[in-house]
Structure formats: C-alpha cells, structure tokens
C-alpha cells in the first residue's frame, strides 16, 4: 500500500480545468486557478520589466512606446479582468470558509461574477 502512496500525477492536473458534469462551484474553482496562474506569470514579468526603470529614462520610455502594441494592450486588459475575477472569487472563498453564505454559495458566485463583468465593462470603456 505504501508504494502506491502519493504517486506523482502531473497528468491529472488537466482534469481540474475540464468541468465535465460540473456546476457553478466547479467552474469557480477552475476559473480561480486559471487566473491565479496567469496573474503569477504577469507578476514576475512586471517585476522584470520594471528593471528598465533603473536603467534610466532612455530605456524606460522606449519600452513605454512598445506598450502601444495592441497585443500588449489586450494583455493589460486581461490582467485587470483576471484580477477582478480572482479577487471576487477569493472573497467568496473567504466568506464560505468562515461559514458565511455557505448555503447560498452558488448565488454568491453568480452575484460576484456579475459584479466582475460589470466592473470589467466599465474599465474597458475607460481604457479605450
């Protein structure tokens, strides 16, 4: 029995994101995980890029010109969207972990996602 304990199973990693036969909570979990990975990637990218600031006005302002690229603009939009989705979902997790709203977690999730969509629409309008 002991040899079969904790077999590394990186392959099953993908089953998190395949919400077959899943309901609201399962979707929430997958969404939270995807945004978490995306945001972590962005975090370290952002930190690396900021080193350009230390190199002086020339390189930083040159970099800023790059950010006009529509691909980058989309990336920036995606980051803010991810922040709202992950953050609101996180609040739902904190609430339910301390017993608040457990019987209505589905409504909590839908409610928060509607708020998220609303906020994302607002800042999209302001951004463009």
């Amino acid at each position, binding site marked *: 029995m002991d040899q079969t304990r904790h077999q590394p199973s990186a392959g099953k990693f993908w089953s998190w994101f395949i919400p077959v*036969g899943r309901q*609201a909570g399962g979707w929430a979990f997958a969404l939270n995980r995807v945004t978490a990975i995306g945001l972590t990637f962005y975090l370290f990218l952002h930190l690396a890029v900021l080193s350009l600031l230390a190199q002086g006005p020339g390189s930083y302002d040159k970099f800023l010109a790059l950010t006009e690229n529509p691909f980058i603009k989309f990336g920036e939009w995606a980051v803010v969207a991810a922040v709202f989705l992950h953050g609101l979902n996180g609040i739902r997790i904190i609430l339910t972990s301390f017993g608040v709203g457990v019987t209505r977690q589905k409504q909590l999730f839908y409610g928060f996602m509607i708020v998220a969509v609303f906020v994302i629409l607002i800042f999209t309008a302001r951004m463009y």
Partner: protein
Amino acid sequence: MTEKWKITLHVYRQKENEAPHFDNFTLEVNPDEYVLDAVERAWAFHDRTICFRHACHHSTCGACGMRVNGVEKLTCITSIRDVTHNGATLQVEPLRNFPVVSDLAVDMGSLYRKMETVGGRAVLPVTEAEIEKPPSKWEADDSQYIRLSDCIECGLCISACPVAATTPEYLGPAPLAAAQDQGLKRKPELLSIVDSEDGVWRCHSAFECTAVCPSFVDPARRIMNLRTQVVDMRLRKLFGKA
C-alpha cells in the same frame, strides 16, 4: 394506461483484461420508473453479464451510485423522466475516482477505510445531529433519542470532487464531513488527521460534493465548518488554551 417510452441505454462496460467500451440496449420503459430499473431491465432481458450494485432501492444503502449522463446520481431515486426523453439516449457510467471492478461496480474500499479512520458515526444522539429545525433548547434527557447519520456512504461526493480526482489519498468530502460531525472538541485526536496535506486544506471550495449529495449531508458546509474548528484549535494551542 401507463406511459411507455423507448430509450437507448448507453452502458459503460469494462471487464478485467478488456478495453472499456459502451454497449447500447434499446428498452421500453415507463418514464416514471427509475434509472436503476432500466439498468436492471437491460441486465434481466438483454445481457446477464452487466455488473452493477443495488440493494434497498430507496436511497438508504448507498449502493447504486452511478454517473447518469455524466452527472453523479443515486439511480434508485432518479426517475427516467428527469434525465432523458422519449426516443433519446440515457448514458450510465460508474463513479469517478474509484477503481472500476467490473462495468458499473467500483471498489469503494478506500471510502470505507477513511470513514473508519475518522470514526464516522452511523448513529448519533439527536442533540448532536445538525437537524433542520431544532428546538431552541434541548432538554437534558433528549440525548436518549438517537438518529441515523445522514451520510449513506454512497461515494457520489468523492466522484464529483475535482480534488479527489488528483489523488486517492485525499480524505474526501464524506470522511471530512464525518469528522466534522464528530467534532474536534469531542475527539481532539482527529486534529492531526484533518489538519494534514490530505485533509481539510486540500479542499478548494468547488462545492461539487454538496451539489450531488442525495442525502442532505451538505459536505461542503461541513468542511468549511471543520476549517474553523481546526483554526480555532490551532490558535488555542498556540496561545496555550487561553
């Protein structure tokens, strides 16, 4: 005159040393019968090698859990009308996250072992059961009245849980709910079992377990409550039970 439907039962088949596949059976059924009845009919009149579990036929024993059209259900109380329509297909598969023994029957041993480890109570005094509308105050001798635990150990929750899909070591919703039911105050030795890597912190709040539980256990709520119990106990230990 009872209604009659014609449906195609799409059954998962897997025998030892064979590749899994699906078999189709065309059946005439009464739509107000249950999915379990349809499986039995296919077994009785079409293919006696279909292997499946069933016992009480009234949602008490927990034997007949299967995935119906991809969703975990207790087939003895799932009416055919609710999951398909006349002329359509009805897909039946075994539960996920348990090894398949044969066709629709899975090895539930891991669940039973875990329930035993946490000392899940099958019967408990009604004063300790979380019933829906308890009196504002229990009388002293009310604890003589006992009640069957809600959990029928059917395994639907474990099949639906995305974390249980990653490892068979995860305690799982039903055992964690049973631990919560015991309570860490009553059984402090449970703390090291549930406050472990395979215990309460592995839950990612997907709430799939509560969504499929046929017996009103609400394991997700119990796991959340167990978390507060664990945090409470750890804080107390840190500050010397102040």
